[in-house]
């Protein structure tokens, strides 16, 4: 079922966000972004500006931010483009939120590699904290979304929370991260395995072992 956009009540949104305008700092940033594109092609800046607007809304509401209709219109007007064109962009990309989200936007990847590596446990950890897919918790802290591949398959399963990725998760580490966030701390981003740094093979290399310390010509062995 392709539903009509489930955007919040228009009149209320307009009353709250109708007077949206860049903060002095963001106005500068917006100008810099627009300046990246040739004159007359300012519409190309729509994506960074929508992101900037979403962040400003987030800062004002102490959440991850979202894009109320008047804010989309503000950005469209700033770029001299029809509202519908900016609206199309905002609906196309899932990183633009069309409904308010909580302070932490928990985006659990459920695509095949993560699924095979245990994203169900990650999802269960979230659900056990009272999160419901597509909803914000009553305390306004967490919004849970299941997303498609975030390109971190070597470190599956993963979850993206706000601007950080948390990788190599299991049930316990997910609970720990969520607890830390709820307590107002900022847990270590990236892989959660003690002996892993980034996306290198866990437990040492299994192929091209001779290449670890020096260059090795494999061609003779083919």
């Amino acid at each position, binding site marked *: *079922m*392709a539903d009509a*956009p489930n955007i919040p009540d228009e009149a209320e949104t307009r009353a709250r966000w109708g007077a949206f305008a860049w903060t002095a700092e963001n106005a500068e940033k917006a100008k810099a972004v627009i300046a990246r594109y040739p004159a007359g092609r300012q519409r190309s800046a729509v994506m960074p500006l929508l992101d900037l607007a979403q962040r400003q809304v987030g800062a004002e509401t102490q959440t991850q931010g979202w894009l109320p209709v008047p804010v989309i219109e503000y950005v469209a007007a700033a770029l001299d483009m*029809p*509202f*519908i064109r900016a*609206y*199309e962009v905002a609906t*196309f990309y899932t990183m633009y939120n069309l409904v308010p989200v909580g302070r932490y936007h928990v985006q659990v990847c459920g695509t095949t590699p993560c699924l095979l590596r245990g994203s169900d446990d990650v999802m269960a950890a979230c659900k056990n904290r009272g999160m419901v897919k597509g909803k914000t918790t009553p305390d306004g802290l967490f919004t849970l979304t299941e997303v498609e591949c975030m390109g971190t398959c070597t470190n599956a399963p993963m979850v993206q929370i706000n601007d950080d990725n948390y990788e190599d998760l299991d049930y316990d580490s997910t609970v720990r991260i969520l607890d830390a966030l709820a307590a107002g701390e900022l847990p270590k981003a990236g892989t959660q395995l003690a002996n892993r740094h980034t996306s290198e093979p866990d437990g040492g290399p299994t192929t091209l072992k001779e290449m670890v310390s020096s260059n090795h010509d494999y061609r003779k062995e083919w």
Partner: protein
Amino acid sequence: MPKVTVDGVELDVPQGATVLQACELAGKEIPRFCYHERLSIAGNCRMCLVEVAPGPPKPQASCALPTAEGQVIKTDSPMVKKAREGVMEFLLINHPLDCPICDQGGECDLQDQSVAYGRGATRYDENKRAVTEKYMGPIVKTVMTRCIQCTRCVRFAEEVAGVEDVGAIYRGENMQITSYLERAVGSELSGNIVDLCPVGALTSKPYAFEARPWELTKTLGIDMMDAVGTNVRIDARGRQVLRVLPRVNDDVNEEWANDKTRHHVDGLVRRRLDQPYVRVNGTLQPASWAEAFAAIKAVGAGSSVAAIAGDLADCETMFAAKSLVNALGGALLEGRQTGLDYDVTSLSAVNFNTGIAEAENADVILLVGTNLRWEAPLINTRIRKAVWKKGAKVFAIGPETDLTYKAEWLGDDASLVTKLPTAVLDALKGAERPMLIFGGGALSVPGVHGAGLALAKSVNAVKDGWNGYNVVHFSAARMGSLMLGYGLPGGIKDVIAAKPKLAFFLGADEVDFAALPDTFKVYVGHHGDKGAHAADVILPAAAWTEKDFTTVNTEGRVQRSEKAVFAPGDAREDWSIFRALADALGVSLGFDSFAQCRAAMIAAVPALGVEGLADYGWTVPKLPAKPEARAIPSPIKDFYLTNAICRASPTMQRCSEELVHGVDFAEAAE
């Protein structure tokens, strides 16, 4: 000129042609949904796949592939057949099987093409996707589950209508076509997306569930709602006109029609005058034709007779009325009901000389006192094309409005015509194909007409092969009436000053009737509107769909329209009313049939006998050229309610309320 081979036939195609166009030149039919000649190429339906060598060993979307020298194109190979079947099967996966209750049935591209190119059965037995309903305004009914996302409507709204209200939101499985926040599409051309839609997703709201296409009698007509002279097809069932659709005529309307042209037809069966009326003791009483004629005879007007043509009057009607007035010894003929009195000694000075189709080649355009979007929407699309595709510059004088393209507004003072800023003058002088367009509002200000002609001379707008001086009329009758001599030096003021004893109003509703208190008013028309209210005798006549007629559009194009249905009740075709009245008044008009009437008209004005552009030459009358310094008024207050038929039409009333006055119907529609 690349040489390509299509199914074994070698042919030369124009440089830049697409493979699809090459196939069409070779006489091959290529199925398509998203491709449309008058819109940009999208290439997203994949129905037009053909096999092309050299190239990758897979089918190619022919609509988006340019031809190249030596290409070998196959449209009938097994690969193409299989590809088409595959695409069709995918398209039908999410398309509901509701053809029996779909208004597009019988004229549906998807239906036709699935019969011609589909597999015949589906292998899909999952649930189909459904899409929630959208609201698109009073003209367009939506059933979005049927949408195959060809995006023709989106491209039309953006490229032709210039109203960027329609878009595709979300993506993939969830992609859906919608107007912005489901508001009504604010375009006077929104009806065209109904025609463009290859499936039943967008259908006509006023025409919903009215008829099947095969039940309709199709008659070729010319629209009388504005002076563009849109070529239309009148679809009627029995005695009722159910819809009006545009025909293709690249010189006039391409293949578009505005919403008024399409949807005024429900006004044709409402508030009709279907029998004569005579005013007795201040009230209009039904009467017989004989009684009505007797009442007119009793006036004893002698030669003190006038005829005033309304906006919907056709040439034969005006000629018949003129013949009667002349036969009675009168000469008061006027068509400009609202009091315009511009000079009509030279028709070329009040004509759209550049031509509608040529307008899209202009490079600098000055609009004076015209809201083209309302006065002639299909000329506005041409100007938009000039701006959008070729980068023309537009300057405008008059009340500021949104014309759907960028125009530089200079102010609304009429005297600006003689005091143009140097930048504008330089732009016009430097232009290769400059265009000056004067609207009815501009001509209502004394002096603008002469100043405009002087401006055309000073910026060299009229040169070899290019006449850039244009007047855009709003009334469909205007050029015809002027050719037939309906035009007094002082306009309708001359009629008022002459105090005629008897006046015929040919569907003229906008006249200031109070200014003619001592005149016996005979209203010859088809709708009970302002004119009928003021009349002393009403003679019921035929509306434009109910008679054969000749009409001349604003560029002087003579066109003929045919009769689709009969007039209701006792109403008669206009020429026969004047013929019968002539007998009652004891004079002779010199014709006894419609054919004789038309022949006599052509004998009097030979140009009306040749379909196509009438040649007015180029003569410039000597006119005062000092415009009064005052704001140019806008002649149209409400696009949807400009004549008696529209005012009787519930659809047009609804459009007016919603799109002009901003009443919100979106909720009520659910």
